[in-house]
């Protein structure tokens, strides 16, 4: 298996997933169905995590096929630019969905409409459109039977030309990220600040569930969640920008990919916490009360995985070029 396989495996999820998410969201509008809306607000953040992984795997897929006969670098670039724009909207949709979930969790399940839900609707519709374009431009690279060939870079429908005007040039983005060492230093600095916010807030919640500082009611610690999400958001943005700046450096690095795997497992960990009984079983625990085994297991897994993420991140530098490719 190489990165081309991985990319082809992953790339359907963000495209179809956002469509399904939007579909559920639209149906929930008509039927006032709180569960459907909640499901869609969970699907979007899940897709925004997978979209990042898909984007990263694209660099390796590019390395695997760009020397093959008949593969046009211009088509690859167009696809990559389209993916950058779609990724931007995907991440915003995911973040807005989490805001929507947070707000509706504080009120009744069928909370009144608020600005975050309008924003989710708008951004998810744009994302679905942009994702379709990413799929089409990606298909053009290796599927001559459905594509229109190399001319497609400059030709195409009115709509695709208009969208293309907003798509960044991947080379230009990379140049922007790496042009100044002070900009790079700032991104890395913020990546550490995000780490501290995230580990501090999530760490204390995990430790409390495991029995540390039991006088603190667990529900109260949950109020720190927006700060954990802010830390994660800072690191997601700075991390993706760093990748776009030096994709060849990260894409063939075992430590980097294992770090991504650990982050995806953390996504499952968070899902396991909020979507099973674990959350309800601890949310109302007061001072001195012990968390049940399932919650403890999830907390221990979370702590372990976050420290694994730090560890693997630290070893990226010494594991560069550990994945062989036919460059």
């Amino acid at each position, binding site marked *: 298996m190489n990165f081309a396989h991985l990319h082809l495996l992953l790339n359907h999820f963000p495209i179809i997933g956002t469509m399904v998410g939007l579909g559920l969201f639209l149906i929930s509008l008509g039927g006032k169905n709180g569960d459907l809306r909640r499901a869609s607000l969970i699907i979007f953040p899940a897709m925004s995590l997978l979209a990042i992984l898909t984007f990263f795997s694209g660099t390796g897929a590019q390395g695997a096929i760009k020397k093959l006969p008949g593969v046009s670098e211009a088509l690859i670039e167009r696809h990559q630019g389209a993916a950058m724009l779609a990724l931007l909207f995907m991440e915003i949709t995911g973040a807005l969905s989490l805001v929507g979930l947070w707000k509706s969790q504080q009120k009744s399940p069928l909370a009144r409409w608020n600005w975050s839900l309008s924003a989710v609707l708008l951004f998810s519709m744009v994302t679905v459109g942009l994702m379709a374009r990413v799929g089409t431009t990606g298909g053009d690279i290796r599927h001559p039977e459905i594509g229109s060939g190399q001319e497609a870079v400059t030709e195409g429908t009115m709509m695709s030309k208009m969208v293309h005007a907003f798509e960044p040039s991947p080379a230009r983005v990379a140049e922007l990220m790496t042009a100044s060492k002070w900009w790079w*230093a700032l991104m890395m600095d913020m990546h*550490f600040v995000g780490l501290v*916010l995230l580990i*501090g807030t999530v*760490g204390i919640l995990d430790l409390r569930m495991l029995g540390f500082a039991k006088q603190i009611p667990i529900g109260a610690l949950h109020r720190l969640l927006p700060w954990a999400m802010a830390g994660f958001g800072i690191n997601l943005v700075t991390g993706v920008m760093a990748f776009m700046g030096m994709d060849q450096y990260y894409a063939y690095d075992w430590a980097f990919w294992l770090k991504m795997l650990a982050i995806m497992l953390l996504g499952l960990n968070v899902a396991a916490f909020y979507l099973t009984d674990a959350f309800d079983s601890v949310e109302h625990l007061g001072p001195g009360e012990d968390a049940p085994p399932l919650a403890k297991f999830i907390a221990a897994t979370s702590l372990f995985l976050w420290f694994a993420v730090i560890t693997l991140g630290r070893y990226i530098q010494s594991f560069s070029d550990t994945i062989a490719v036919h460059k």
Partner: protein
Amino acid sequence: MGPPAFLQAIENTGFSTWLRESESPFAFYFILLFHTFGLALLVGANAVVDLRLLGVARTIPLAPLKRLFRIMWIGFAMNAVTGILLVFAYPTKALTNPDFYVKLTLIGLAIWVMQKLSRQVFENSGLSEADMMARGATLAKFSIFLWFGAITAGRLLAYTYKYLTFPS
């Protein structure tokens, strides 16, 4: 005028050379890793206390947060040890860089503020929550500012050094 000669003497020791040049994943990067763990424990725990004192997540009772100071001290101890080892690996790089002294100063001040928080706010069990917040708010702001500065100064060490090793 070059850097002082004792830096070269440190660099030439077997231990310093091993830290710097060993291909083992348990040499330099391992120490750097534990320096990052220590940072996460120390500043992560301190940041939560600071945020709470500034009014974030007010339903968290303040008194039990006293327990977090132990985590901070463990993180600080880890970073004092790993920090010395890192300087041992690259003494010329660190000690000839003014930013290194800025970092140490900021850490010193941040630890001083942390100790004041511990003594004045958390070790006085007669205080009400409102009193604790009133006493701690300014310290908490300083704490956040100083830790942010210390992390930034630390990160900048990778970008501002004049010599990586002793100039030959």
